[in-house]
């Protein structure tokens, strides 16, 4: 299937917050209560439609344990979007967000869209982090925020798709240099730049203008 754009995502966050389950819910629309542990990195992909254009999301799911942090860092480069996940039933996963965010900001391109996700919203009775706190953190750091449940699928579609919309808008505004694959965006095989099907805003980012 031919897509207009391909966006690369990376999912990050502490171990056990539900990164792989979010990915599985999004790509396969199912929840697996017992899931294999992610060692190193795993991968998933799905097509979505934005503005009548087919967009392929290519999602890299990383290991959360501290030991793997240096490996995770090499995936930030070349990602257009990041899902930063914490577990609303475990306060410490929320406390570690600053470190994750610093890592992400330092190793990614500056335009990377970051979506903050408070996962496991179905476990209301065990909640340790208020929704307002997630909201406040997101506002303070300029992130989009959503609470999701990989179990009930609540907001999972929205989380992935809203991130894509944000990236898409940035492309329209000409913020992303789509000719530079290091930004995590690829133009589909039938939509190469020579076909002059570039969105209006992106003309400013001709190869000579250099990238961010």
């Amino acid at each position, binding site marked *: 299937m031919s897509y207009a754009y391909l966006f690369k995502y990376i999912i990050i966050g502490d*171990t*056990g917050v539900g990164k792989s389950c979010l990915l599985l819910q999004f790509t396969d629309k199912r929840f697996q209560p*017992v899931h294999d542990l992610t060692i190193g990195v795993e991968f998933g992909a799905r097509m979505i439609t934005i503005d009548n254009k087919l967009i392929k999301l290519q999602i890299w799911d990383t290991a959360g344990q501290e*030991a793997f942090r*240096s490996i995770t860092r090499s995936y930030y480069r070349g990602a257009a979007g990041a899902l930063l996940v914490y577990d609303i039933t475990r306060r410490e996963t929320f406390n570690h967000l600053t470190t994750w965010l*610093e890592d992400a900001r330092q190793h990614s391109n500056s335009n990377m869209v970051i979506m903050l996700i408070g996962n496991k919203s179905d476990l209301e009775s065990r909640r340790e982090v208020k929704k307002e706190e997630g909201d406040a953190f997101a506002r303070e750091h300029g992130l989009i925020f959503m609470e999701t449940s990989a179990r009930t699928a609540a907001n999972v579609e929205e989380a992935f798709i809203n991130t894509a919309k944000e990236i898409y808008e940035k492309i329209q505004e000409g913020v992303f240099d789509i000719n530079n694959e290091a930004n995590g965006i690829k133009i589909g095989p039938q939509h190469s730049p020579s076909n002059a099907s570039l969105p209006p805003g992106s003309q400013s980012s001709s190869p000579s203008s250099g990238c961010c």
Partner: protein
Amino acid sequence: KWELQPPLRTLFKKEVSKESLAQEEVKAKQWELHFAEYGRGVSMYRTTEMAKLVLQGVPNSMRRELWLTFAGAWNEMASNRGVYKDLVENAMGRVCTANEEIERDLHRSLPEHPAFHTDIGISALRRVLTAYAARNPQIGYCQAMNIVSSVLLIYCGEEEAFWLLVCLCESLLPDYYNTKVVGALVDQEVLDYLVSEHLPKLHSALQQFGMIKMISLSWFLTIFLSVMPYSSAVNIVDCFFYDGAKVIFQVALTILEANHEKLQDCHDDGEAMQVLTTYLCGIYNEHDGGHPIIKDGETVVKSISVQALLYNAYSKYGTITAGEIERQRVKHRLRVVQNLEDGLGRNIVRSIQSDGYFSPEQLMDLVSFIREELVGRHRPDERYDPATPPYEAYRVDYELFRLLFAGISPWGKGSKADDLAARLFRLMDSNNDEILNVREVVAALGLTCTSELTVRLKLFYTLHLPPVLPTIEIHSPILSDGAEVASEATEFFEDISFAFGNNSTESTPLVEKSGNSSAEELTWEVRSLSSLRSLVVAPKQDQRSLPRMSQPHFIALWHTLYDMLQQELTDEELYHSIASVGTLLLRLGDVVKRFYAARDESNDSLVTAAEQWNEKSGMVSDQNGNPGEEAEWSIAVEQFLATTLTGQPIVDFFSKKTDLSAAVVKLRKSRLNTLQSHSELSS
């Protein structure tokens, strides 16, 4: 109460076809025959016949015995009777990061096996992993150990599984499961090299995606157990225990070669990853009775039998020897460790560069030097709390700080440099643990090397105020031994601490700690130090003035200044300016008349004169050197600044910016020379 579990496969029996049962029996018989001829247990011979038997897969019932023998775990277990039980008892219920992480991973280790749907399997796995973390806190628990251990528990008794894990972590896969999976990162590099040697075309195709690193980490860390059906991967584990880690490389190369066409056709790393995942999931075991492979409820297309895969691996890449792998490991290890350290170094620099004392490049030079020194002294702390900022990763003690101060700071050259270093160290040590983090070190050096003239002068002034410079340290006869703290000063500092407590959001993190601590818990001295620190480090947040200085402290200050400048310059002008500025200040201190009366005109050194005068005068001050009742002499920091700024050589000295990088180069050279002469002396 708990008891040792037997191999979990004996408790949770899979339904096996007659055909596979028969195959199992045949294999077992072949092994019995081999034992009869070549011995059994630790003393058996390794024959080509045995290699063939291993290659077709060890029968399930014999894995326990043969894995333990091949790996050498028998010896470990036999010479450590009872150790496992003690470790389990020890580790059980202990609250620590490792145990918490283990708990979270128990149910996602081998979820497809029925043994781990019950408490029997889960508890056994918990015991093995927590016991290991208790045995070796250096490694503790690293994800992937859980997957390997659960497979070991299927085929081996609990205690045997534990000792096999010990062998894996400590000898068979050296350094794999430490805090940064260094060993596995090194082996990824080795694989990359082997691919370039054996499959050059594919290597250039894969390199474009950075693929090899991406895919192979889990291959190494779990010996393929997490990437293909475990009942197939155990055959690779058989060979691994028999032949060592080189098997992983041979199999990895075979897998890549088998997919090289598809991989070369891929447009991006995602597609390539998919190709390999599909292939790996479809690897089946010939002796599983032809069952379909079910994954996530779906039947997977079979790709190759593990027997064929292993046969190809041995026939095509059997020439790769353990020796070659070892040579390559040594070659790549240094770079991998260096990369990790550089990464950490860059993070440290990023976390402090906004403090503005030095450029990022200069900071990197300094951080590298600190790392080298730490490595030389002892190991740099590998396990630091990830929730703390990067600049906490390197811990600098006074000894190292003194070296840095002497080598880098323009204040570190005189005979009083060590005193200054000690006081500066104490001033910057915000949590009072006799260790500075990198940010504090950089602030200390930056304040003396690159900060503005007045900031530097204020710091210099502060370093001669009590309690940074306790009065006890001033060798002057005028001290009384009163134990009371000057009430004026106490009020001053309490005031400041109070202001800071309310103001902590505005203060930078460098002074935050002190601002947030409960005031009641802190002694007057600690609070004063933290107040002074915030006045020096974050003057913008704190507009308050520094306390006034008493005469003994001022004289000590002038001593230091004289000493420092003496190292720098020797011309007349210097003496002249020091003397004139000092005189002016003393006059300001309202004791000028008596000073002149006592002054020996023939003596050019104002400092000596001042001391002589001190001896004669009967001035009394309290324990902290603050002005006592009889003597009112004191100067304010504003007076100190205004007067000092009239002495050009002093201004020049305190304005000169140090080139940190050049200073570090020089320091490193002199360290090298010291080390060399030390080794020459000892040899």
